[in-house]
């Protein structure tokens, strides 16, 4: 931390905890109050938790920074969440690093829709964002071409089997859950929807666009005005599809993830995306979305560090960082924010045995991406620390506002 005195220590801690993972002591798990804290969650990528294990879904630091992740039993050098002197703390080799808090459970969580679906299975809740993922099955996996870092289909298949959690949501369930969530004053600032890619339709992704239109309209029926703070993390839609989406829904911002900002590595790691659309076209479509949503209202996520996956990735961190930041600058100069998450080689993904880069790499990456937004005067309101909470770089932006 001494070397990066101008970078928030909370963001450095977040990156390292995500990178190295964490476990809980029994004392810390004993501090979980099932009536107050979240221990079950519907997520696309990662893990939906397990009622019997009752593990907190994520952590919050003192400054409002989220650490999004589930504990890993196989991590080699994890942080330990403990309870000491009545406070929950992150510890590293027995030393207290920082205080942490478990995410609170919103009021709607234990309620049911009229069809009997538990509302927590319809919408997850981050500290200030409602997360609705209407389809947790990705078509790219059907031909064995899912992105190599991703475990979406493994996770949703497990949840369907073990918790009877449906892979698809209904519009009525979405409408009722959003309606209930909005009864809690001050709880949310944004609705985000995401889904595995749906390749079917007259034009590729047409059915995915139809699904978002239906779900956004259902959520939108709860608002006074047509437009409401919202985003989708979706496939790279054509201009025609984006226009249809924008005109027919309350959607205000748009994300489509380029994942690995390097054509050759994208072709290897995101084989399905490259085969069906191609890197250059995926990128072009994201940039064209700026014409509809406006500069700063379009972002693209990258799996930070995955560019160093072996055997084809970069072997030198400086080279990897240079390549990533150069491509990120090309996006930023055209109005698109690049935001990163910390690559966690997850169970259920093809890369589960890989090793992610050093902490210093992540600190430089977060700072580099945040500095690019400053240079191109892009605000990241759509994806800031309290909306998503999964991007160390956009966490930094709150200290940089002019």
């Amino acid at each position, binding site marked *: 931390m001494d070397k990066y*005195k101008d970078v*928030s*220590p909370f963001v450095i801690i977040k990156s390292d905890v995500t990178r190295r993972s964490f476990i809980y002591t029994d004392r810390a798990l004993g501090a979980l109050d099932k009536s107050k804290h979240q221990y079950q969650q519907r997520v696309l990528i990662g893990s939906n938790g397990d009622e019997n294990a009752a593990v907190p879904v994520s952590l919050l630091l003192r400054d*409002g920074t989220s650490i999004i992740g589930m504990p890993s039993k196989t991590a080699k050098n994890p942080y330990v969440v403990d309870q000491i002197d009545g406070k929950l703390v992150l510890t590293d080799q027995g030393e207290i690093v920082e205080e942490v808090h478990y995410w*609170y459970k919103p009021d709607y969580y234990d309620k049911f829709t009229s069809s009997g679906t538990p509302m927590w299975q319809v919408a997850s809740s981050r500290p200030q964002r409602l997360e609705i993922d209407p389809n947790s099955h990705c078509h790219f996996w059907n031909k064995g071409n899912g992105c190599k870092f991703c475990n979406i289909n493994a996770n949703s298949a497990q949840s369907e089997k073990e918790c009877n959690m449906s892979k698809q949501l209904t519009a009525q369930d979405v409408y009722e859950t959003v309606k209930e969530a909005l009864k809690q*004053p*001050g*709880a949310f600032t944004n609705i985000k929807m995401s889904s595995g890619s749906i390749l079917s339709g007259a034009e590729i992704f047409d059915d995915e666009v139809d699904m978002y239109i239906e779900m956004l309209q259902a959520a939108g029926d709860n608002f006074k005005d047509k437009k409401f703070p919202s985003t989708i993390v979706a496939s790279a839609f054509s201009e025609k599809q984006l226009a249809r989406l924008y005109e027919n829904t309350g959607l205000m911002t748009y994300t489509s993830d380029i994942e690995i900002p390097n054509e050759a590595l994208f072709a290897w790691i995101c084989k399905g995306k490259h085969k069906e659309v191609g890197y250059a076209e995926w990128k072009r479509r994201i940039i064209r979305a700026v014409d509809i949503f406006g500069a700063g209202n379009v972002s693209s996520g990258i799996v930070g560090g995955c560019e160093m996956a072996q055997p084809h990735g970069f072997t030198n961190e400086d080279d990897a960082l240079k390549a990533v930041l150069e491509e990120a600058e090309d996006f930023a100069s055209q109005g698109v924010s690049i935001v990163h998450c910390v690559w966690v080689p997850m169970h259920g993904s093809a890369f589960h045995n890989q090793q992610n880069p050093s902490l210093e790499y992540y600190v430089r990456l977060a700072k580099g991406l945040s500095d690019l937004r400053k240079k191109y005067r892009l605000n990241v309101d759509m994806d800031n620390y*309290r909306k998503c909470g999964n991007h160390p770089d956009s966490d930094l932006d709150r200290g940089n*506002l002019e």
Partner: protein
Amino acid sequence: MSILTESVQALLQDSKAAKVLATVDKQGIPHLVSDNTITVNDEGQIIYLELIETSRSNVNLVNSIWFKRKVAIHLSKGEESFQIKGYPVYSVISGPVFEHYYKLALERNPEFDLSTVWIIEPDEITDDTYTARKNKERDEHPLITHLDRLAK
């Protein structure tokens, strides 16, 4: 235990007292906000409710919690005047504490859309009245005064 005396805590709870929060930006440029809703919680920590997420104060407070920089609060009513310096220790953006103050802000003004509950741990407090400051100076710097004050 808080360093704030009962009388200072009472003044912080008094909505008629004048309260000013001073922060600095990264370049050291000061910024002031006058806000008589600044108050104190049961632990003797100061509560500042930030209504504007992108305000200069909020950004300065973010940098203060990140880099352990002090902020100052000036508090006065009638003959009483205090200066408190402390560290922002929590930026509360969700959960029961946030929602409690969110509703309170709404009751004050339905237009208020609370961004952040800042919790400031007081670290030093000084009596800021002229008399207290002058007495201190006389004790510590007896040579600094005009001679006419000392004439027969």
